[in-house]
Structures are given as structure tokens and as C-alpha cells.
């Protein structure tokens, strides 16, 4: 047995519990999906993303139009791409991809996902650090900083990372319960923070000048020094791809395999329009009220006092924790270490990332890259699930031939990423032609194979 065989066998053991398709009796009602989406998409990153739109000089009209349409496209991606495949197969992406791409490539996908998760959790820790920093007289990094700014910042992020990791080791379930309590409160904190910031921006108590203030003092259309100017296209595409790995990348098959009908994808609108629209607007208002300084902790503290700082800290904690858990799960198979040890390893890696302010100060680019890297896998699955039968091509050849790696899928994945790298387009726009390219090239390779 080769090392790759052993690794994939270990990975299979880890995911053994969800190997079988979900049974009819285990299907969940729609409100379950609405609650999940509402909780998951009001996170620490929302404090950063909405604020960045202000710093990137998005105009009010562009913001509203971009968020309305972009989030609608995200909801439609869940509804018409992810949910139908999930309800037809009733499998997680892991098991479905294994049939299509082979266990070796599925392992590579898992490792890539784990490392990307660690960077994301690192960003959450850094955001939490901005909330606790003032208590220890540690200033938050400036917008242009990419490397650790001070010993104090490094110690603070290491301390927070250590605590988050410790709690992740001690028990995911208890923290998941705590996260359940936090999520409605954090959403209210976003709304409350924005409302409390309005007087500082000069909004009259009768709201008569609200639109004027929003246009002239918040979403002015003028980018802060050193920041790229964003237009409606940037906002629209960002809102669409913010969860690209989940909808187009199909990782939310794990969720929607429990849906009674593919139309349950529409419940994602609850998370999109509360978290990715309302919360982003609220954080935009808060950052404008502190003079457009990218400091999530200070933003919330100025608006709501100590409880506001805790809102940022808890938002970081409750979202970093499941992210750490997922990263640990994905890496466990590769190392074969026990759960506590691999969570410790993932936590150490995550904490190391969090010391670098770039992980949250370049968050928009990172979110774009994260989705882009995993997107070709979604295209490969879509091609094999829907297009292959229509073209008379055999499906699941990797499974039927017992191949460890579907090399056509590997070539399409790597080739798509290489093509995206050289595309003369803004990073935000590259995934869409890349998706088309991955879809077309995988089908073409399937047709070529049939001819030969």
C-alpha cells in the first residue's frame, strides 16, 4: 500500500459517518436552513468588509445596487447549482468528489481547504486582537502594514490564538452552543453600532438628511489614500464570490443534502441580506464615524463602549472556532495525529498567520483568492454531474476504474488556476471566466478521452 493510499484510507475513516446518502427521515425543515445561514454570515469579517467598501471609495448608489444584485446572484448560485446537486446525491462534496476525482485529488482538495481555513481563522484572531488591543495599550496596525507591527501585537495575537485553540481542543460542542447565543446579539450589535454612530456623522434625529450624509460622509465615491477605487462591479462581484467555495465550489453540499427540496437554497437569502448587506452597511457607517480608520475594535468601542469591543472579540472567536475545527478535521487524515494534537497544530499555524496584519488588512483579496482556488473543483463536479450524461459521457470513471487520481480533473484544476493568474482582469472578476474555462476544458477532455 502506497503512502497516498494510506492517507486516503485514513481520510475516508474520518468522514465515514457521512458516507451514506442522507435518509428521508433525517431531512430538515426550511427554518433550520434559515437559522444556519443567519448565524453563519454575521461574522467578524463583516466588520472589516463593509468598512473596506467605504475606504475603497464606493459610492452609495453603487453599494446598494452591487449588494442587492451580487447577493441575489449568490442566492441563485446556492439555489440552482449547489442545492440541486446536494438534494440529488444526498452526499457531501467530499464523497461526491471522491467518486469523480479519485481519493488522491480529494485529499489534495482537503489539504488546500485546511490551509485556506487556517488563514481565514487567522484573520478572525487578528480582528479580535483589535478589540482587546486598547485594553493593553497596543495600537492596531495601520492600513499599509503587512508584517507584525510590534512585539505587543505579536504577543496579543499569540495569546488570543492560544485561548481560541485551547477552547477548540476542549470541546467544539460547548462553544458551538455559545456561538448560538452570540449570533443574534452580534447582529443586533451591528445595527446598534450603526445607529449609535449616526449622530457623530451629523444625521438629524428625524432622519431628514440621512441620504445626504450617507452620500457625502460615508459612501462618498472617493477612495482613502492608497486604496484602489471600487465601482459597482467590484461590489457586485465581491458580494457574489464572498462565499464562492460554498455555493459554486459546492462545499455547502454538506448542508443542503439535508434539504427536502433544492429550492431550500433560497433560504441563503436570510444570511446574505442580513449579514452580507445589512451588516456590511452598518460597519461602513461605523468606520466613517471614526474617520475612516480600519480598526474594527475601535469602531465598535467608539459606537457601543466596552460591549462593542466584546462584540468584535466574540464575533472573531465564534467564527474562528468552527474554522479551526474544520481545518483540524481536514488535516487529521494527512498526519494521522489524534484530534487534540492536530487542532493544536492547526491552531499554531492559524496563530502564526494572525500575527501578520495582512491577513485582515488584505481580507478582500484573500476572500477572492480563497474562492478562486477552490472554484475549479465545483466546475468539475458540475460538468460530471449535469453535462456528462447529456453528452453521453460515462460518469465516475475514477471510482469505477479504482483510480487514485483523476488526472484530467487535476490538469483542469491546475490549468484553470494558471490561466486565472495570467488573466488581464481585476482579481475579483477572474473566477467567472475561469469557471467557464474549467467547465469547458473538463468536458473537452472527457470527449477527447471517449474518442481515443
Amino acid at each position, binding site marked *: 500500500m502506497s503512502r497516498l493510499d494510506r492517507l486516503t484510507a485514513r481520510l475516508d475513516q474520518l468522514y465515514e459517518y457521512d458516507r451514506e446518502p442522507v435518509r428521508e427521515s433525517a431531512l430538515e425543515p426550511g427554518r433550520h436552513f434559515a437559522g444556519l445561514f443567519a448565524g453563519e454570515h454575521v461574522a467578524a469579517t463583516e466588520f472589516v468588509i463593509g468598512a473596506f467598501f467605504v475606504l475603497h471609495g464606493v459610492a452609495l448608489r453603487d453599494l446598494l445596487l452591487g449588494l442587492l444584485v451580487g447577493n441575489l446572484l449568490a442566492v441563485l448560485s446556492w439555489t440552482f447549482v449547489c442545492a440541486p446537486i446536494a438534494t440529488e446525491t444526498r452526499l457531501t462534496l467530499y464523497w461526491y468528489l471522491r467518486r469523480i476525482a479519485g481519493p488522491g485529488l480529494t485529499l489534495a482538495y482537503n489539504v488546500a481547504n485546511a490551509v485556506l481555513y487556517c488563514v481565514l481563522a487567522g484573520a478572525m484572531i487578528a480582528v479580535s486582537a483589535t478589540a482587546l488591543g486598547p485594553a493593553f495599550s497596543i495600537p492596531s496596525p495601520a492600513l499599509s502594514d503587512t508584517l507584525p507591527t510590534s512585539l505587543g501585537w505579536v504577543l496579543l495575537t499569540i495569546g488570543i490564538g492560544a485561548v481560541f485553540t485551547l477552547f477548540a481542543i476542549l470541546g467544539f460542542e460547548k462553544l458551538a452552543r455559545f456561538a448560538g447565543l452570540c449570533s443574534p*446579539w452580534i447582529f*443586533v450589535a451591528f445595527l446598534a453600532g450603526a445607529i*449609535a454612530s449616526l449622530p457623530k456623522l451629523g444625521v438629524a*434625529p428625524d432622519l431628514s438628511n440621512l441620504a445626504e450624509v450617507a452620500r457625502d460622509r460615508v459612501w462618498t465615491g472617493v477612495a482613502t489614500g492608497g486604496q484602489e477605487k471600487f465601482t459597482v462591479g467590484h461590489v457586485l462581484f465581491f458580494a457574489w464570490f464572498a462565499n464562492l467555495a460554498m455555493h459554486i465550489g459546492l462545499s455547502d453540499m454538506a448542508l443542503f443534502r439535508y434539504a427536502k427540496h433544492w429550492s431550500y437554497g433560497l433560504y441563503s437569502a436570510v444570511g446574505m441580506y442580513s449579514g452580507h448587506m445589512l451588516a456590511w452597511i452598518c460597519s461602513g457607517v461605523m468606520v466613517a464615524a471614526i474617520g475612516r480608520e480600519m480598526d474594527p475594535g475601535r469602531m465598535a468601542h467608539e459606537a457601543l*463602549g466596552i460591549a462593542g469591543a466584546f462584540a468584535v472579540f466574540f464575533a472573531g472567536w465564534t467564527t474562528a472556532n468552527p474554522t479551526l475545527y474544520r481545518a483540524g478535521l481536514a488535516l487529521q487524515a494527512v498526519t494521522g495525529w489524534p484530534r487534540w494534537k492536530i487542532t493544536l497544530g492547526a491552531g499554531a499555524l492559524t496563530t502564526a498567520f494572525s500575527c501578520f496584519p495582512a491577513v485582515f488588512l488584505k481580507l478582500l483579496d484573500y476572500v477572492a483568492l480563497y474562492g478562486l482556488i477552490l472554484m475549479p473543483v465545483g466546475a468539475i463536479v458540475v460538468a460530471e454531474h449535469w453535462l456528462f450524461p447529456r453528452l453521453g459521457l460515462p460518469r465516475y470513471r475514477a471510482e469505477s476504474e479504482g483510480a487514485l487520481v483523476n488526472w484530467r480533473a487535476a490538469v483542469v484544476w491546475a490549468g484553470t488556476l494558471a490561466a486565472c493568474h495570467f488573466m488581464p482582469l481585476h482579481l475579483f472578476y477572474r473566477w467567472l471566466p475561469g469557471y467557464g474555462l474549467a467547465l469547458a476544458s473538463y468536458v473537452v477532455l472527457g470527449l477527447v478521452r471517449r474518442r481515443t
Partner: protein
Amino acid sequence: MRRAALVLALIGLATCLLAPVAYFRGDLGEDAMKAIFLAASIVWFASASIWTSQAR
């Protein structure tokens, strides 16, 4: 007990939202708003914890 905890939790959450509204309308000072928000947050966490633990 469980019902009372839920009602109290919802009141806490609503107060978290009403305090900044009152501040915005000029009915409440900034420090008072922040103190009320903190107190209401504590009420939310305490009551919602009781509610969820009893639900289990």
C-alpha cells in the same frame, strides 16, 4: 422558568437596540446608552443561557 428566561432574553436583546435609538433621538446620553447596552447584553447572555440549557 424557561418561558420567563426567554421573555427576559428577548427584552434584553430589544433593549440593546432601543438604547442606541434613544441616544440617536436625543433622549439618552452617550455614556448612559453604552451602560444600558452593556447591561442589556449581560441580561441577554444570562437569560438565553438559562433558556437554552433548560431546552436541552
